């Protein structure tokens, strides 16, 4: 009997703990993400076009999913506040996992999704793209940058799904873009070392195309270092790069390991020019990182949070108000652009909520391949019939803790 009460007590305690944790969550970031979702869903019931989407809202990649969700909700609310096309948004968690993404797709379909933001990350995106094609539902991914999201044969870049579009640069474009920029600016350095994450399709994808383009441009890569998983010690790779005499360090990786590389290189007294891609965006916000070390870092990015134009300023302000002062990253900007691009296309094609998915899809494909779109992540964006976006990557350099456009 005593044991029984012990167990009951334990169960009750567990429940209490869960509830208090849940309460904590809703006090800080939870309220900003979950409450507006309900609003967005209920606020526009009549005649609203249903937008679906999935991304990692939990797990290690949750930063990206939550950024996309917050920005997309914001854009939907702004659009609904105006007359004209009305949206409602349903955003599901896929934990950055192909299996979960397929399940989330089922949930979205049951929810009556008519247009989709596909997925936030690449691997789940590649799993659901065939499903979107089967059901002829139009999808545009804010940040699924791998070619396998829009092509059935990702490596060969053939067999486009035709109804899955991208808002972000594809990985190959970033790799070759970086190599072209470095070749055009010999003052950055001539001996290149690369450190990339070889269990990450994003990093590996950029590196492969960078290497290929570097070969055609005649660039000299003196060292290739790799790491995996959550590694945080880069002394070996940096030591080898220094020994190989590299004066330019190309880092096609996300900002967390990049900040560690910069810190450790500084401790070693190794000072190469550092060149990153869009994953480097966010390095100035890393906790405990001395931003002075990021001075002079180059990066290719489509979005700069402290740009001076009116559109970006309003976006950043509104986003901060929603996300407890968090500065939006490029994922958020891409998602915001996605929703606005969808609104523009829906207006132009005269899409209404009672149309079938296939009709909407056909009209949207026609619109997207013919229209130009001005957004936060670029102006005069166009899409080809494979779903690839054309926009100019901007090379930025960090000076005095801010992004400044680098020499063209």
């Amino acid at each position, binding site marked *: 009997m005593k044991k029984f009460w012990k167990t009951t007590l334990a169960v009750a305690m567990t429940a209490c703990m*869960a509830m208090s944790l849940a309460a904590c969550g809703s006090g800080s970031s939870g309220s900003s993400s979950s409450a507006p979702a309900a609003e967005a869903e209920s606020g526009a019931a009549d005649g609203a076009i249903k937008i679906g989407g999935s991304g990692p809202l939990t797990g290690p990649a949750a930063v990206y999913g939550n950024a996309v969700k917050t920005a997309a909700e914001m854009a939907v609310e702004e659009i609904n506040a105006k007359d004209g096309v009305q949206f409602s948004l349903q955003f599901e*968690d896929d934990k950055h996992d*192909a299996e979960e993404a397929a399940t989330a797709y*089922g*949930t979205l379909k049951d929810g009556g999704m008519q247009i989709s933001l596909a997925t936030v990350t690449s691997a789940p995106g590649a799993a659901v793209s065939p499903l979107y094609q089967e059901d002829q539902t139009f999808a545009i991914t804010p940040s699924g940058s*791998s070619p396998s999201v829009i092509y059935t044969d990702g*490596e060969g870049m053939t067999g486009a799904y035709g109804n899955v579009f991208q808002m972000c640069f594809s990985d190959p474009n970033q790799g070759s873009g970086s190599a072209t920029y470095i070749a055009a600016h010999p003052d950055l350095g001539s001996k290149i070392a690369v450190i990339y994450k070889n269990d990450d399709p994003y990093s*590996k994808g950029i590196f492969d195309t960078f290497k290929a383009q570097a070969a055609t441009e005649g660039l000299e890569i003196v060292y290739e270092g790799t790491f995996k998983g959550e590694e945080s010690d880069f002394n070996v790779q940096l030591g080898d790069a220094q020994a190989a005499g590299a004066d330019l360090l190309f880092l096609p990786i996300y900002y967390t390991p990049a900040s560690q590389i910069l810190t450790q290189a500084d401790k070693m007294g190794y000072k190469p020019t550092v060149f990153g891609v869009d994953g480097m965006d966010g390095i100035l916000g890393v906790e405990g990182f001395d931003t002075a070390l990021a001075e002079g870092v180059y990066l290719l990015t489509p979005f700069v949070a402290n740009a001076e134009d009116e559109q970006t300023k309003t976006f950043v302000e509104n986003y901060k108000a929603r996300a407890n002062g968090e500065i939006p990253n490029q994922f958020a900007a891409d998602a915001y652009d996605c929703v606005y691009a969808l609104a523009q296309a829906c207006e132009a094609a005269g899409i209404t909520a009672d149309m079938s998915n296939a009709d909407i899809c056909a009209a949207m494909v026609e619109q997207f391949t013919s229209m130009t779109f001005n957004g936060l992540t670029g102006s005069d964006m166009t899409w080809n019939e494979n779903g690839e976006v054309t926009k100019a990557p901007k090379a930025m350099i960090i000076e005095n803790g801010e992004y400044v456009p680098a020499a063209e």
Partner: protein
Amino acid sequence: MKEKKSIFSFLMDNRHRSRTISYTMVAVAYIALEILLKSGNLSSLFTGLLVPATCYLVAAIGLNLNVGVSGELNLGQAGFMAVGAFSGVCVSGLLKASVPAVPRLILAIIVGMLLTAFVGFLIGIPVLKLQGDYLAIVTLAFGQIVMNLIMNLYVAFDSAGLHVAFVENNFELQPGGKYLINGPMGATGTERIANFTAGTILVVFALVVVYNLIYSRNGRAIMAARDNRIAAESIGINIAKTKMMAFVVSAALAGAAGALYGLNYSTMVASKFDYNTSILILVYVVLGGLGNINGTLISTVVLFLLPQLLRGLQDYRMLIYAVILIVIMLVTNNEFLKTKASAFRRKKKA
């Protein structure tokens, strides 16, 4: 009338009751779901969950043989699934042009199963010399090693034939060539040929294999070796052989499950099969009851569906899922409730 009764009592006697219940559950579930599916009444969410559910069922049935019946804690079931999954995907990719979907699926599952059984045999030689915690650690490491090996494996084919490379993909593909496994990107562009019927057949196959093993001479030997190694050896049971049998059959079933799983998604990365997946399957087995196949069937289905049914809770769903797991653990291990339950059972019998 008399004859009918004897068939019933035959099916429900101690030797057969458990499997009668298993087969009935699977048959009823299959028929009900198939009717819903054909009449279009099953939601898209559940339609998408059918095949992965059967995959986890097969892997969990296999693991129960290893952990429950043979008593060896195996934390590498996902590693075996990975071997089956990627070999199955390769077979299907290679034969895409020449073999129609159904025989290709069967072939892929068979190849995945045999290859995994072979890998299981090789791993089993050193592993089964260990016991308890040591065995758990080695199987855990095995799972991680397999995952990392596949992450660095490049397999492609073109008009010049099959190319295989490790760490560096140093081959140039002819036009029209295709990657089957592309290192960290995993298998992409896989044709999805798995279906619910194939999954159910595989579950039935797993049940037949495991039940026939458990209720055979070898099965009794396996359990004897689990309960008292020295006593079993003293009556002439070859411990190494019996343990190996359970280990290899368990691995083979995981391989078959993996092959089916791989052919259900157009893309699959090796990191899916990390220790989290191994633990997940182990949780299905442990909560269902070690050595209890019916418990495994029920707990796998319930625990697999639970996170999806909790989607309505938005941000809190994984939190609530964890709490439910803890509550189940506490409640099922509670002495008071256990005595109540067995008293209830006795009353019913009397």
